[in-house]
């Protein structure tokens, strides 16, 4: 059974990486700042989900367990069984940190966009860039 999981996993991870590429394309090519922010959210999410899939594993039999002890272990053997069946906890912790940081940055960028709109009357980045070129020529 695990061969099927492996074959499907190949496709799935490739899809995540493609997602990342599409989102990065959105950040670079779309003019609207809000669209850029949305693309940025999708981009960081895709990176995080790639990390989680790096930390995944398969077992010979059955399905892996989450990295949480179901109850207080009474013998070392019980603990060792848990170690043998659980997925990677470190990447989950790192991704948790990355999610929080990504949200903080998106929050701040959205505030910037609100102020930007007050100055330029639009959320289009091209307007302000055109204005900048005009200034330089003078």
């Amino acid at each position, binding site marked *: 059974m695990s061969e099927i999981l492996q074959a499907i996993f190949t496709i799935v991870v490739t899809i995540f990486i493609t997602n990342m590429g599409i989102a990065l394309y959105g950040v670079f090519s779309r003019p609207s700042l809000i669209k850029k922010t949305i693309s940025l959210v999708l*981009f960081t999410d895709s990176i995080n989900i790639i990390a989680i899939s790096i930390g995944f594993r398969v077992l010979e039999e059955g399905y892996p367990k989450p990295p949480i002890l179901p109850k207080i272990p009474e013998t070392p053997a019980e603990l060792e069984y848990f170690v043998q069946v659980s997925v990677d906890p470190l990447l989950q912790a*790192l991704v948790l940190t990355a999610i929080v940081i990504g949200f903080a940055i998106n929050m701040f960028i959205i505030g910037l966009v609100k102020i930007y709109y007050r100055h330029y009357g639009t959320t289009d980045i091209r307007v302000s860039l055109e204005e900048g070129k005009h200034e330089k020529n003078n």
Partner: protein
Amino acid sequence: MIIIGLLPIYLLISATLIVLLKLILKKEVIVDLIAIILGFISLVATFYTMFLTMKHGIIIYRFGGFPPPLGIVYVVDKVSAVLSMLVSFSLIIAIVYSIWILLPKWRYLFYSLAFLLIAGVIGCLYTGDIFNFFVSLELLAISSYALTAFYRGSSKAIRAAVIYAITGSIATSLYLLASFLIYASYGTLNMADVALKARDPGYIVAFSGKVYGDVALPTIIAMILILWTMLFKSGIIPNHFWLLDVYSESPTPAVALFTSTADMIGVYGISRFFLTVFGEGILIEYFRSLLFNVALLIASVSALASALLVVTQTNIRRLIAYSTISQLSLAFMGALTGVPEGISGAMLHLITNGLGDMLMLYSAGIAIISCGKDLSCLSTLRSNIIAYTAFVIGSLNLFGIFPLLPGFWSKALLTLGFLKAGLFWGIIVVLVSSGLCAAGYFKAIGAIFKLKRNPFITISTTIPAIVLATLMFFALTLGILMTLNGYFREFVIQWGYDMIDYKRYIVITLNLTI
């Protein structure tokens, strides 16, 4: 050793304490005083750290008492200790200067952001962990976005902050991806551990075991991503689009903080990653040398192009921005030679660039306040002897022709490094770019002494005078020390040896016995 562990926590506490005191006491004077005292304590702490590194070589601190691959460690060698001294020094200078230039009501926000920025920078300098480097990088990035947008009423400042924030978060996200790739293939996040396994994949380290899968291709991708992030952070020319607006629209102390702390992290990071971690003797040596050549090419083109652009500028801030790009590119080239002299030249050049830029920015700040950002406005400085002396000394320092200033020594060391590495065109790049930059600086100095309508400075300039005098004193002291004291020169050259001595780094960090 506890001092390194306490330093980031201390900086964060002071960042919050300032806000708390302002909200409770509502008196600006006390907050200013306390901010200066807190900054001074951090300066003392970093000074003590440097003293410790001179005594012990490399010092490490284990957070939470966990052994390295399991927990996070801070590894401080001479380079990071010296750079952290520069960082806390520029913090205290920026605080003092901002008392003069910023509105009293909102000054505490600036202090808090500055402390957070410095906490991020010191985290980047000290850390021995790849993911912790990312978190510190984000901390310094988000506080610099906020500092850029400090003048929220100016539309150009907001535009600069928006562009900086969006592109900067892409860069840091790519670094995040690189760190995940490194963890995926090496099975560890500790820099020393990665450095060991990049040389000897079969080595079994306590707690993290052997490498996981084939390391070659993931390492290549991770190196490219890290290189791009660091090039972005330092604003080397294809990635300089954010830097100009940021430098010309932010408050003066914020720009000084960027130039002396945040932007040098790119050069420091590249030397830490490509000289210590993925340094000499890694398995994909051929790719490393290829990447180095490409990066050298980019950096030299950037140095020349930005030096050319320095000449054409009419805005004083933009002039300084292009000059910073040029100097940082030179430092990049020096770090990428891989020769100890070149590396210590690059690190000394970071300090030089920080001091020179601070001198120029702070003295130009007086002119900007009383007249404007145009070059002709510099003529207001003529009424104030300290201000124009500082400007002249700063530009001479960056020009690097005057042996009593550190700029001369850093450029000399860079040249020596290029000679040793056999990169003769590097010397030409250094000479040409310094000459071109000098043309720009002399244009600015000429603008000071050009007889023109002379609007007098109306406000008191005691505080900037004190700041500039301190900066001049430090720059001259450093230069005189370099000139007269052979031991000090030895100490500077030692930085480069420290940086490429990966064996000692690995052995001390992982506590191995070889």
